[in-house]
């Protein structure tokens, strides 16, 4: 176990460097949420006057939680690519010829994703604060939000790794990531549930992303709502177990 931790640490430093040394990586993660935050808050600012929005006065404040979750999503939606590129170049083979546990190879891809998702989400959160949103639960709430974002990212990452490991095709992997996009929209990122058509409300109820967003929203707007936070943690855990189990199975199958 400590051997795996040791190997994951040093291999994780490497994958983190791989991420940080390409500025486009960071930009491509925060760009879309940033645009949505900035543009939609102004374009649709009057939407908060609809009854379904209750006592909300700022659409920006409503959007922010969804965009924080969206950022975590963007941080991991194409995360399987790194492994695929290295498998193709033979680098993964080089690692496998080192006296390391093969699980360290997978762990070194996954663990940094938690940090990447958390930090990127933190950046968007800070920007939304600068644009006028607020976190009623203060610094503690801020840390809890980015931790939830990080865990959510880690849980969701499997959705990119599984097609990557099974198909070993960049096209299939990115197509699959694209299919996840509608999930972000069929959530309370943009409108409250009451304003959704019936069929979308059903999707919304089963959408783990919504629970994460609602937990973040409570931490920003109302206070420590432990029901909402608990629901978010539960959805993350269920999502994580399913997708990470799938990832472990796919990795095992392909690495001897």
């Amino acid at each position, binding site marked *: 176990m400590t051997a795996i931790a040791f190997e994951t640490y040093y*291999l994780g430093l490497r994958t983190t460097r*791989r991420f940080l040394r390409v500025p486009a990586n960071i930009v491509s993660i925060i760009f879309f949420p940033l645009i949505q935050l900035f543009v939609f808050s102004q374009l649709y600012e009057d939407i908060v006057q609809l009854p379904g929005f209750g006592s909300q006065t700022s659409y920006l404040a409503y959007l922010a939680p969804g965009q924080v979750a969206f950022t975590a999503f963007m941080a991991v939606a194409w995360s399987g690519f790194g492994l695929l590129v290295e498998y*193709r*170049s033979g680098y993964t083979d080089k690692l496998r*010829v080192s006296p390391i546990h093969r699980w360290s190879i997978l762990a070194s891809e996954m663990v940094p994703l938690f940090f990447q998702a958390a930090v990127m989400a933190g950046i968007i959160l800070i920007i939304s604060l600068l644009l006028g949103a607020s976190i009623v639960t203060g610094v503690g709430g801020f840390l809890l939000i980015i931790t939830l974002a990080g865990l959510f990212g880690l849980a969701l990452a499997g959705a990119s790794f599984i097609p990557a490991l099974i198909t070993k095709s960049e096209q299939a992997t990115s197509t699959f990531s694209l299919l996840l996009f509608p999930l972000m929209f069929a959530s309370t990122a943009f409108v409250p549930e009451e304003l959704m058509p019936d069929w979308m409300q059903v999707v919304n109820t089963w959408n783990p992303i919504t629970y994460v967003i609602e937990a973040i929203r409570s931490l920003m707007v109302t206070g420590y709502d432990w029901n909402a936070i608990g629901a978010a943690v539960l959805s993350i855990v269920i999502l994580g177990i399913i997708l990470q189990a799938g990832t472990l199975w796919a990795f095992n199958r392909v690495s001897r």
Partner: protein
Amino acid sequence: MTEANDSAIIEVRDLVKVYGDDTRAVDGISFAVKPGELFGFLGPNGAGKTTTIRILATLLRQTEGQAWVAGFDVATQPGEVRRSLGLAQQTPALDAFSTGRETLELAGILHRMPHPEVRRRADELLELMGLTSVGDKLTGSYSGGMKRRIDLASALMHRPPVLILDEPTEGLDPQSRTALWEELERISQAGTTMLLTTHYMEEADRLCTRLAIIDNGQIVVDGAPDELKRSVGADTVVLQLTSGNADLDSMRTKVRQLLEGMVPPDAVSPHPEGVSLSVPNASATVPALLRRLDGDGVLIAGLQMSQPSLDSVFLKYTGRHIREEAADQPISLGWQ
């Protein structure tokens, strides 16, 4: 479970690898490499060289047969095997976003070398490979030759007793190739046992102390390069005769007379520049021939010796030339 032969550092017994689509990539290979040897696998692409290498490096499981590296069974003791060997793959496998130094240090750390030693050894290898000036640049910016050198260096970080190289000079320009050959010779002289695969005759000829010629997943013949070439035929020695006062023909007759008894009559044939002699093991017999000729005033302006090539050896044992097969075979990478 049968045990490995004590005197061999690499041993392979009846190795077979059948892929899912029923191709027998390796079809019953057996060989042994003694410590300190520079052993070569010569054969066209698709012959089974890379597959054998991957099995030895514990990247692939064999279908049948056994293999040992440094006494450890590749199937049951992969960890120990990996600690005992370094692998340089056909295409250098590097993380483009790590610097050369980071690449070396990571290899050292993963082999559990203590940190101060990792740093020292990385400096040493960068120096040895002439990469000190680019050690802190990203390997993605390296040239082909530099990539191979850093890949080789990372395989040597932990000072493995065995180094395995798959097509080490594939795709390199002549200067880089020669430089790499010199480096490989240095490594061999330092005591590392090396196993390399190649489809270049010149490479096998120059570097290898022993050679196995592999074709269609089987070893067709093995032995030292000189031995193999001698088994194919005689060497050719061309003596360039200066005519001086006599004409070339009478010189030739004189040579024939003088060498009577030393070589069979049909070994001497005319050559535009003098005579051509067909003698086994020319480097051993030529001095005596020259002494005989010299004594009787035959003026030799020059001498050329050539041996049958390894291609002739390949041709003899397989009926084909190596070069014909060299192109057109896809490289198989990654997990299978």
